[in-house]
């Protein structure tokens, strides 16, 4: 195990980059990054063929540290850049990492349309219920009643369930994990990358510095432990009553469906367009000859 960790550190981290990173001690982002790197390693993907894209926020810094083709885009727009990269070079494995505000507030429209469009992309959304980098303002996943720097009297709005939103928007594969269940996280990220179509992995993570502290949820350890207590496997949740599920959330695979991928479908468009172009050119020639020779 240690040996593998060392291989991953040597192989996948950028050693010419000026470390340390920007993440706070105890932040879940590192766990997600580790799970992602292990997944890529297990899948034996070539580093040259992997693109890691991100938006803005704490999660946005992840690409800087890893040795792939990496791009740190604008806030909320990461999936649009990924769409262009994938369409231009479909052979690349394009993974996009985003935060909760990044993907469902400013980038909400891009997110649901990427799911609907069904390109072969993988989106990893680290959901820590707050805007950490800007100082702990409320995000689309901040729980009702929570304290944040922009809801000091308690949050009056309701939270998105990101994975369920992805299912509804039409993603081919949707799973939820947590930074506590690191091995499980690695597995679902692997599945998501392997899946042909738009895949989403929502990762419940901790921002003990902003969200945790203000809401008395404890430090990093306490918060991460709470994910263990509150996470229920999808298949187990099906057998539980609403009361039993109060305050819990599901983890596991929420959707795994096979449907046509738009990049594959576009090949048909190209073939048809080419056939049509040849046909039109032929007909034009014929009409000319017939009437004016």
């Amino acid at each position, binding site marked *: 195990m240690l040996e593998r960790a060392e291989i991953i550190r040597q192989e996948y981290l950028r050693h010419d980059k000026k470390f340390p990173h920007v993440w706070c001690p105890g932040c879940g982002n590192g766990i997600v990054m580790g799970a992602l790197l292990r997944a890529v390693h297990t899948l034996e993907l070539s580093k040259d063929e992997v693109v890691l894209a991100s938006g803005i926020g704490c999660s946005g810094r992840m690409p800087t540290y890893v040795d792939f083709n990496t791009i740190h885009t604008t806030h909320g727009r990461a999936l649009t850049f990924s769409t262009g990269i994938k369409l231009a070079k479909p052979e690349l494995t394009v993974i996009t990492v985003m935060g909760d505000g990044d993907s469902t507030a400013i980038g909400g429209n891009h997110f649901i349309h990427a799911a609907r469009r069904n390109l072969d992309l993988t989106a990893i959304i680290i959901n820590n219920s707050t805007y950490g980098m800007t100082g702990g303002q409320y995000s689309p996943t901040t729980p009702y009643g929570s304290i944040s720097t922009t809801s000091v009297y308690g949050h009056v709005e309701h939270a998105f369930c990101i994975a369920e939103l992805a299912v509804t928007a039409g993603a081919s594969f949707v799973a939820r994990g947590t930074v506590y269940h690191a091995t499980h996280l690695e597995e679902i990220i692997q599945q998501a990358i392997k899946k042909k179509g738009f895949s989403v992995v929502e990762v419940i993570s901790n921002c003990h510095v902003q969200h945790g502290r203000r809401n008395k949820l404890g430090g990093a350890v306490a918060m991460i432990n709470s994910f263990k207590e509150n996470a229920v496997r999808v298949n187990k949740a099906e057998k539980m009553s609403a009361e039993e599920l109060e305050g819990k959330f599901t983890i596991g695979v929420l959707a795994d469906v096979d449907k046509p991928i738009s990049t594959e479908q576009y090949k048909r468009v190209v073939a048809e367009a080419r056939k049509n172009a040849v046909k039109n050119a032929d007909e034009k020639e014929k009409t*000319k000859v017939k*009437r*004016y020779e």
Partner: protein
Amino acid sequence: MSDERYEVRFSGSGGQGIITAAVILADAIGSFDNKFVCQTQSYGPEARGGKSKAEVVISQSPIDYPKALEVDLLLAMTQTACDAYFFDIKPEGLLIVDSGLVQQLPTSRAVSIPFTQIARDVIGRELVANMVALGAVGYLCGQVGLGSLEQALLARVPKGTEKMNSEALQAGIEEARKIDLDTLPRSVLSDWEDEL
């Protein structure tokens, strides 16, 4: 310089195929006769409303201003269009109207041809009245090879409608052949205006 320009304006109401007729004329002159040509049209709500216009500027040298300044030939397929677009026709310009749709002529230097009726009676489709009119405009403007006009038409009309449109064009040309422009008054202005 301005003498070199020859300007044709097609006008009528949205749906009469005014723009299509202008585009075919421009294509014939520009692509087949190798003259310089600029084609513009009313666009947006203006093009969908009561009146629609499209212009073709023709020249032996590169064209600067793309729109019509002094119109040499005005085709009016409705009374509204005739009233609206007659004002900047040249004194020696020519007005061509659909006789079934334009009854009040602002000048006696005008040619009336029942384009819509010909389309209905001869071709069997009112829809191709624009092509009948194009035939007449093409013949009477003297700026385009009639072969070029037909080639441009064949290249631009929807597949399967070539024969119908081509016949409509020919019907328009034939009708125009019967007209002797020399019998018309010299100017679109009335005599008293000429004296001013």
